[in-house]
């Protein structure tokens, strides 16, 4: 088990290195660079830009060096915790990203919990009561949930909140806490707001998970090991949880990691629609403005989150399923 964990962690290093190269290439792809978009702006404002000034700027951002060197500057700085400078906000990227990353992570993880909290009982109920009215009702709800993209759900919720209840459902904080420093009241205010993006981001996943869980469980319910346990005298409620459910959830545990990218990109769209202080809106802005340090750092962090999520879910699976552990 220990060697399994170590190999898996060691495997992360090349994965992340390759991802960083791809991210670097992608953010360099569009025509121009930070300096040219900066100059466009300055010239539009009527500021005179000398050739020397341009050269200096390029040198400052290492843009006069070959691509490969540029990559190593970027990657090396990233590793030492310096994510570069955002010209768009005229602030170090470090200052901009951490808080937003925290909110993104909070919404994504709580959406994951929401997914499970809903999908587990509903999936079990649907499988045990297959083809009853309750099952059909849940199936219909799940299909609606699957067919509605998160951003649309966000718009619907915001509209309902505004029209019917006269409340603004955007953002993560009430206006009075927006710029306040952290306190218990601010935290409570965040909890009062975060449930909506959590539900919206998690809804699709919950519907999907519930349907798959139902199907997996239906496969397991009459397996010989369940019949044996029933014949042994295990009480019905315990029987269902300890035997078939325990097996039916295994594929999901390994899927948690794979669900993360979907949740994060869902959160990005929802974040823009609802005006959340998360990574999503900032990422879009930085990409549009070719603010490459900002965009690159955020993409890199999202990649790190996903890769660690996958690792965690694999370790979790090995922990709960001895068959994996012994391979």
């Amino acid at each position, binding site marked *: 088990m220990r060697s399994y964990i170590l190999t898996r962690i060691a495997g992360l290093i090349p994965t992340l290195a390759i991802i960083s190269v791809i991210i670097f290439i992608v953010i360099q792809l569009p025509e121009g660079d930070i300096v040219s978009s900066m100059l466009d702006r300055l010239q539009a404002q009527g500021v005179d830009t000398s050739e020397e000034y341009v050269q200096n700027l390029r040198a400052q951002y290492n843009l006069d060096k070959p691509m490969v060197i540029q990559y190593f500057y970027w990657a090396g700085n990233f590793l030492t915790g310096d994510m570069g400078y955002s010209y768009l906000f005229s602030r170090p990227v470090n200052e901009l990203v951490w808080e937003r990353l925290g909110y993104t992570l909070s919404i994504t993880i709580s959406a994951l919990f929401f997914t499970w909290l809903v999908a587990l009982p509903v999936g079990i109920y649907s499988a045990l009561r297959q083809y009853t009215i309750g099952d059909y009702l849940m199936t219909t709800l799940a299909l609606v949930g699957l067919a509605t993209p998160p951003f649309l759900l966000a718009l619907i919720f915001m509209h309902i909140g505004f029209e019917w209840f006269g409340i603004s459902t955007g953002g993560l904080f009430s206006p009075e806490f927006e710029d306040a420093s952290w306190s218990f009241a601010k935290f409570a205010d965040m909890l009062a707001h975060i449930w909506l993006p959590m539900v919206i981001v998690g809804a699709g996943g919950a519907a999907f998970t519930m349907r798959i869980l139902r199907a997996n469980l239906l496969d397991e319910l009459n397996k010989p090991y369940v019949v044996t346990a029933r*014949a042994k005298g295990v009480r019905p409620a315990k029987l269902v949880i300890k*035997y078939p459910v325990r097996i039916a959830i295994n594929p999901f545990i390994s899927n948690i990691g794979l669900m993360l990218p979907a949740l994060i990109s869902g959160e990005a769209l929802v974040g823009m629609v609802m005006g959340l202080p998360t990574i999503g809106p900032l990422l879009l802005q930085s990409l549009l403005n070719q603010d490459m340090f900002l965009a690159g750092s955020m993409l890199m962090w999202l990649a790190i989150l996903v890769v660690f999520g996958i690792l965690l879910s694999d370790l979790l699976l090995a922990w709960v399923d001895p068959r994996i552990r012994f391979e």
Partner: protein
Amino acid sequence: MAGDDQAVDAVLKVRDLAVDFKTDTGLTHALMGVGFEVPRGKVTAIVGESGSGKSVTANCIMRIIQPPGRIVDGSIDFAPKGMDPFEIVSLTKKDPRLQELRGGLISMVFQEPMTALSPVYKVGNQVAEAILCHRKVSRGQAWREAAEMLERVGIDDIDRRIQMYPFEFSGGMRQRVVIAMALVCHPEVLICDEPTTALDVTIQAEILTLIKDLQRELGNSVIFITHDLGVVAQIADQVVVMYQGRVLEIGTVRQVLKQPVHPYTKGLLAAIPGLAPKGERLATIATVVGDADITTPFPMQTLADGRQVSLPPELGGAQQA
């Protein structure tokens, strides 16, 4: 006959058992008036071809028939030692005796040892659970008793093996675990549903001997389901022959295997390789049965030698009322 009924000490009396399965294609009558008795402390074999209703009968006794199946008629009287006798079919879901019955008073060994245990729990956990379901003992005590029983069914190096997972065991060893799990609460009746079909021949013989030896030691009754008449000869005292959801013949092993009365039983015996004379083509059940009507449910009658048989009138069967 009433006189015979009292002479035999029956632990189970199955009467007129009928089970329906409601499927998309319609209603299947899996059992239609099945009746037999299980003598205490003896081995009763149920034989019959695939689909004759052997497993469904066993599942009725355990009350583990799952939808779409339903017991529509009949009764199963159960007379465990040191307890008031009760009727199994009419037990409500909440009746504590139902839970006590499953695995406590009657337990079951299944055909598929490879899949009969959950892959995610240790062998010790699954055997000890059988004890914890029926008796108020500590976890440690349950594991100790589980270890004792596992040793008794022939699993050695028990301190290490009890901590292992089922997939680390061979098929034969898994079946021993299932047998240990079934016997650990010392049930009145052990039902074995084709326990050796999935195992290779040498292991089959070992498991059969084990079941027989433990039955003698523990004094429990056994219902042994099989379609292998060779196994019946080896292990059983009494035989119940089933066909298409009905019982055709009941008798002692000697009666049924040496002088079968029912044409279907004769057919079953003739179709066994090794019993037919050398060089001759093996008979099929159909050729032996010939024109005899074996599908109509004729009433059971008791013959002079004590066996019961359901015969068509032209072969000496009782006229239907």
